[in-house]
């Protein structure tokens, strides 16, 4: 970790700037997701958030994850959402009461939670410095991932595939009209 | 500690799952088969339990026996450690016996919702959870089993329960969840405070005592809430009447006989030895709450119009005695508490059985409407009387040896707890026994004595002529104790008498373990 110590001296400015900008966008978008009164808008804001997350992955030297994020989420999940929205005919355009009575409780809970998390995070990882992404070779990362999947994490992988299968079947069974 | 790595306990604990697996692949329509499988499986489990009972070395019941220690979740340093000592042995076997008998009882008393397959499977899973909690010697393992118990019971109440079962089941679930959330926090805190080395009881018992005073008090508070909800102790008891009243008979019996004991067992096995100073600080609180529970439960009983609800409240009172015994931190008191746990399990279980059968016959449990049970079904009436007498602590029956020693032990509590306080508690608790006599006899006089309520007497002839004729048999719907019921109940009745006449049977097993435990507590207290 001596390397880290060296790096700690000069933190890459560009990365930080990028991070903060994206983070700001993400947070704004996230707020909109939970605050807008229009379902479709919410979905679109969600796309922004997910995109932001993908960007952050790249900043965090997790290209492979970023790519799958884009493919799975923005590619598949969002489409699903939009379908869901349309099929359930929840009115396009603003909806009068998207929040239920007593949504107010959410604010204190969320704040409380954030307080705790923030405190413990700062308490634990204050001025821990991450490896500079330039130190990480993307290719090796991806190989490592694949090795992981087909090595240590083989069983979970199989289990997961079963889960996916079950989910697919279940979704069909549920959604089938009869 | 030497780990003989003897598979006996593991087998005994997980055997029911085999039955579950088999039943899984048999279509639910074949109810008979399912019942048979359930009975056989639980029977085999009980057989293993009895074998354990035989193999158990009573000479040193203070030490863990059949202990196993295997890698489990190395990441969080939690191992699969199981073991059995004098404290857990009776409860371990009791849980098996109760499940077996309940399975038999289910033979022709499937709750209204039907589907015995699911019901029995849940029951077997429940058994795994219960047995596991009693043998687990690792905090995480214990917690897993402890929670495993929750779900089947939730479904039992929620699906096979009475009118507003959803309310009762959810209440039960949330209540216990709330409790176990805090409990888990306390466990983790304990883990970290002891240097995050291991979750094994052995380690925590030695290391826990070294935690400094205030922290102990806080951690104990967490465990206290978790276990107190399960017991249940006074302020946390309100889930119990609903759960009991709504649960199907089998559910009530298991709930009363075993589940409640998980809480008290937790106190004795975990909270006390691991946090001696915390226990010492909290003992007066526990004692006071226990005694409040005794009186309060009794008052609650007096107010009931529903037989089952009355019994449910009575178990609040009885668990009060158990907790009083524990709170004295004396060998004697804890012995009494452990004995009381088993006794209460048998007696209250029996009472719930009777209540269930009464409901089955009269389709009501309103004390007002029931009367003359002795005339319509004398055997049932006498059994009810027997159980009531046992429950109000008649010497020579099991109940007394839970109550009287608990009261006795409160006269001088251990480790410099305030005697004046505990003597006051003793007197109040004694008052509780009187109230117990009050409500139980009141119940008995109302339901069993007198002429039967005309609305339940078939064909127009007056009840007394029937009774005089002496043959209640030509009642079609209201028949006396059936064969299956006899099979399921006789062991309970016998056990109540045997333990009442010769309590040494259990105390011999308990005593050494308890002595050791109290020593531990003593060493932890400066």
């Amino acid at each position, binding site marked *: 970790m001596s390397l880290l110590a060296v790096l700690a001296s000069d933190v890459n400015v560009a990365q930080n700037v990028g991070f903060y900008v994206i983070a700001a966008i993400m947070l704004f978008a996230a707020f909109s997701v939970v605050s807008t009164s229009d379902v479709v808008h919410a979905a679109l804001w969600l796309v922004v958030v997910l995109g932001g997350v993908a960007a952050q992955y790249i900043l965090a030297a997790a290209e492979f994850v970023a790519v799958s994020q884009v493919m799975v989420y923005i590619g598949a999940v969002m489409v699903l959402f939009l379908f869901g929205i349309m099929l359930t005919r929840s009115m396009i355009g603003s909806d009068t009461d998207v929040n239920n009575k007593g949504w107010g409780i959410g604010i204190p809970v969320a704040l409380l939670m954030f307080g705790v998390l923030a405190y413990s995070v700062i308490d634990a990882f204050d001025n821990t410095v991450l490896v500079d992404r330039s130190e990480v070779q993307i290719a090796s990362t991806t190989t490592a991932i694949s090795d992981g999947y087909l090595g240590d994490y083989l069983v979970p992988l199989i289990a997961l595939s079963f889960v996916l299968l079950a989910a697919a079947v279940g979704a069909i069974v549920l959604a089938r009209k009869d | 500690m030497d780990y003989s790595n003897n598979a006996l306990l593991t087998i005994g604990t997980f055997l029911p799952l085999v039955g579950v697996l088999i039943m899984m692949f048999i279509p639910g329509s074949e109810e008979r088969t399912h019942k048979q499988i359930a009975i056989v499986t639980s029977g085999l489990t009980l057989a293993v339990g009895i074998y354990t009972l035989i193999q158990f070395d009573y000479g040193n019941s203070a030490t863990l026996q059949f202990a196993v220690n295997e890698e489990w979740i190395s990441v969080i340093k939690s191992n699969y450690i199981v073991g059995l000592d004098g404290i857990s042995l009776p409860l371990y076997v009791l849980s098996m016996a109760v499940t077996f008998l309940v399975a038999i009882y289910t033979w022709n008393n499937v709750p209204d919702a039907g589907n015995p397959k699911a019901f029995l499977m849940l029951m077997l899973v429940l058994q795994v959870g219960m047995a596991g909690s009693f043998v687990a010697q690792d905090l995480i393992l214990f917690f897993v089993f402890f929670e495993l118990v929750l779900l089947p019971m939730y479904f039992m109440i929620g699906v096979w329960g009475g009118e507003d079962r959803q309310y009762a089941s959810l209440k039960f679930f949330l209540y216990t969840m709330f409790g176990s959330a805090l409990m888990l926090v306390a466990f983790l805190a304990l883990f970290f405070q002891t240097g995050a080395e291991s979750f094994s009881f052995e380690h925590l018992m030695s290391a826990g005592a070294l935690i400094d005073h205030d922290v102990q008090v806080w951690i104990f508070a967490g465990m206290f809430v978790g276990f107190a909800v399960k017991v249940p102790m006074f302020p946390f008891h309100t889930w119990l009447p609903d759960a009991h009243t709504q649960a199907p008979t089998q559910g009530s019996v298991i709930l009363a006989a075993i589940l409640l004991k998980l809480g008290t067992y937790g106190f004795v096995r975990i909270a006390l030895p691991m946090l001696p100073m915390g226990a010492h600080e909290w003992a007066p609180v526990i004692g006071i709450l226990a005694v409040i529970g005794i009186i309060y439960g009794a008052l609650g009983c007096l107010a009931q119009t529903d037989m089952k609800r009355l019994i449910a409240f009575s178990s609040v009172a009885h668990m009060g005695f158990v907790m009083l015994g524990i709170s004295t931190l004396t060998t004697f008191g804890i012995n009494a508490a452990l004995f009381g746990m088993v006794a209460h399990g048998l007696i209250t279980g029996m009472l719930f059985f009777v209540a269930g059968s009464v409901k089955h016959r009269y389709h009501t449990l309103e004390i007002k409407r029931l009367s003359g049970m002795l005339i319509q079904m004398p055997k049932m009436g006498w059994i009810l009387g027997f159980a009531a007498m046992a429950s109000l602590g008649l010497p020579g029956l099991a109940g*007394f040896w839970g109550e009287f*020693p608990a009261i006795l032990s409160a006269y001088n509590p251990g480790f410099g707890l305030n005697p004046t306080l505990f003597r006051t508690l003793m007197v109040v608790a004694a008052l509780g026994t009187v109230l117990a006599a009050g409500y139980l006899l009141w119940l008995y006089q109302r339901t069993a004595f007198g002429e039967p309520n005309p609305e339940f007497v078939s064909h127009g002839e007056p009840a007394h002529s029937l009774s005089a004729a002496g043959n209640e048999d030509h009642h079609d719907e209201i028949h006396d104790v059936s064969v299956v019921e006899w099979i399921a109940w006789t062991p309970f009745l016998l056990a109540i008498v045997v333990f009442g006449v010769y309590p040494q049977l259990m105390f011999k097993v308990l005593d050494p373990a308890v002595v050791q435990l109290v020593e531990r507590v003593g060493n932890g207290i400066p």
Partner: protein
Amino acid sequence: MFATEALTSGWFLENAWLIPLIPTVAFFVILGFGKRMPQGGSEVGIASMMASLVLAAGATYQWIQRVQSVEGGSEGALGAIRGFAGSALPSAAETGHSAAYVEPVIRHWTWWQSGGIEFTLGQHIDGLAIMVLLVVTFISLLVQVYSTEYVKGDRRYTHFFAALTLFSAGMLIMVLAESMVQFILGWEIMGLTSFLLIGHWWEDGANSRAALKAFFTVRVGDMGLLVGTAIIYFGASQWAQARGSNGFSIQAISGWALSEGADSKVLMWGAVALFIACIGKSGQFPLHTWLPDAMAGPTPVSSLLHSSTMVVAGVYLVARLYPVFFVGLDILDTGVNLVAVIGGITIIIAAALAFVQNDIKKVLAYSTVSQLGYMMMGLGVGAWTPAVFHIFTHAFFKCCLFLAAGSISHSGSHHSFDMKKDMGGLRKFMPITFATWMVSTFALCGVPFFSGFFSKDEIIDNANHNGYTVFFYVGLIGAAMTAAYMTRATYLTFFGQPRGAAAGEHHDAHDPAHAHGEEHALDEIEEHEHVAEPVLVGAAVAATQGDDGHGHGGGHDDHGHGDDGHDAHAGPHESPWRITVPLMILGTLAVFSGYLNAPAVGTEYFTEWVEPAGVVVGAEHDESGAATHTDTEEPEAFASGVFGRATPLLAAEDGEATHSGGEGCGFEGPTEGVCYAPALSHAEFKWINTVPSILLVAFGALTSLWLCLGIFGDRKNPFKGLTQRNRLAGAGHRFLVNKYYLDDLYEKVIVHSVAHPIAKAAYWVNQNIIDGVVNGAGRSTKRTGEWVYRNIDQRVVDGAVNASGLVASETGHALQPVQSGKVNQYGALLFGAAAVGAIVLVLLNV
């Protein structure tokens, strides 16, 4: 096991534990196979009782031998006596004294142990135990024989005998008790069986209510028993363990109580707590109300449980643990103490109540309460032996009276117990019953040369002797009242004109309501318009037969008689032998049992055998005895425990000495410095001392007789048309006139102004205030329960939970149930809890 050279023991003494065992086994036999037996199980019960009686008799014989062996035996002989089983005790020769303490025959087996505390079962046989054993087995036997006739044809015949047997077993277990735990065991078994037996005819709500009340009231007392046992246990255990026993052992407790180390405060609280139990069980003053109600049970039950055995249990407890009470309430040091006061109050209250009863069994019930008061008072004033002796005599004559009452109702008054309505003039029809009744009455009233006289007067006498002057007078008044109400009862039952059923009329005595006053309408009519009677009677009989047709065992005493037509509709007649034989036996004993300890004729066997001393220490020891109590350490001191039975004056001095020296030690056990029985001094019997009581008894009897003649003689209703009658009388014989003047006087002045107002007031207080308190307490408790349940349990506690972490609410309920079913709220709850948990974690980790 205890073979010693001089202090003889013997098989019967060693194995006295068999005595309770036999009935216990018999109980299970009857329960299991009774129904299939020819006699429905009764034969088993009787056989077991016989066996126990034989054993008890044998034990008694050997005990007497033992006592005499001590008297004759050398001092060395004492050496080999076993004290606590298992621990050989040093020879008493070292202590070298002659006031020998007859070591009880003690054996015990560990029942169970926990946390170093050992619970034992065993036997603790001394004079007291032997005496009660004998009485209990004997009376139980007679009552069971009697019952075979009395409850013949009852639907629960077998259960009845099972319960009776179990009851006797319980009593015997308690009497033999070696440890307090065993004592409690027997005590509670009796409670249970009394519940079963009183409620034997539970079809009628009134009976089961009475049973409930009895059990519950006694249970209130039991609280004291539990607490008291706990207190005494922890008080005594240290002392006891030092001597290889434990704090439950009765002998250890006695020894500890009289030892120097005993903490007087602990003793006091222990004594008070235990005495509460006695109040409940023995129907002493505040808790006596259950006893009369318990008469709802069958008569044999009343005579066994509520006259001669069970209710004596409380007295027995005091006598058994006498040292505790002796020191705890320092009897002999004070002119007044709890036991004596309660006893005294009970005597008077109960006796007053007995005047206004119409139910013959209730008269007897109250008289029992009053007699128990005597026993308690006797113990309270330090007259241990007379009190115990009174247990002995009272058992016989009171049992006899009850059985006689039963016999009357059985064959004389057609199952009614109402003296005013259904009895009178029965002496002609039932000579045997009458004779036995009279004898027992005399005994009860304490007429000289009948058994009651020797016990009761001893109590009264000793009260005076020990300086309890007040209670001396209380006793005297009580004696007078006893005589009075018994005369009234006797008169109403056996003299005067036959009335109601006794006159061969049959109103529906079978009707459960009869005993519970719902049928007074009918009675009124019977009394006033005799013309209408036959009609009513006819109807009633029809009803009766209807019932019998069903063999219906209803509420009132003695049912299930559908089959024994032999007395159902015949006039009054003598009962069959199975009833009369026990009566005669008991009657005989009622006369002669007193002579066991009749100083009047110089017999003092009872004292020698029962009192825990084998040697009568003469007057010459008394000075040293007096010195004794200044320092109890010195063994010599015990040599002559204060025990001047022969010399009241000196004994009185010793009384003083005792006071100066703290607890006085009467008889010292073989271990040096240990003393097992307090110093008792006995008043010497002098005829002159008995004169006041005899006079008062006579006075009471005569007064009452006059009253009875006046009130009940010749006419049904004394309160109507007196003047008119007086005019007739004025024209009639002078003697009659005078008599009527007396009538007038008594009725107008005494009856109206004194007897009725006072007695009725007492009764009213009893019924409405004391009883009301009991019932009211029950009722209010229930209400409190309801209130707490409704308002606190359902609203506050439950509510607090339900409200936690929730907002939504839809029902009009005061609060919002957790289960809104709304996913979001579960989410809120979940995350909230998680956050809280996290916070705790963080805090703990800092």
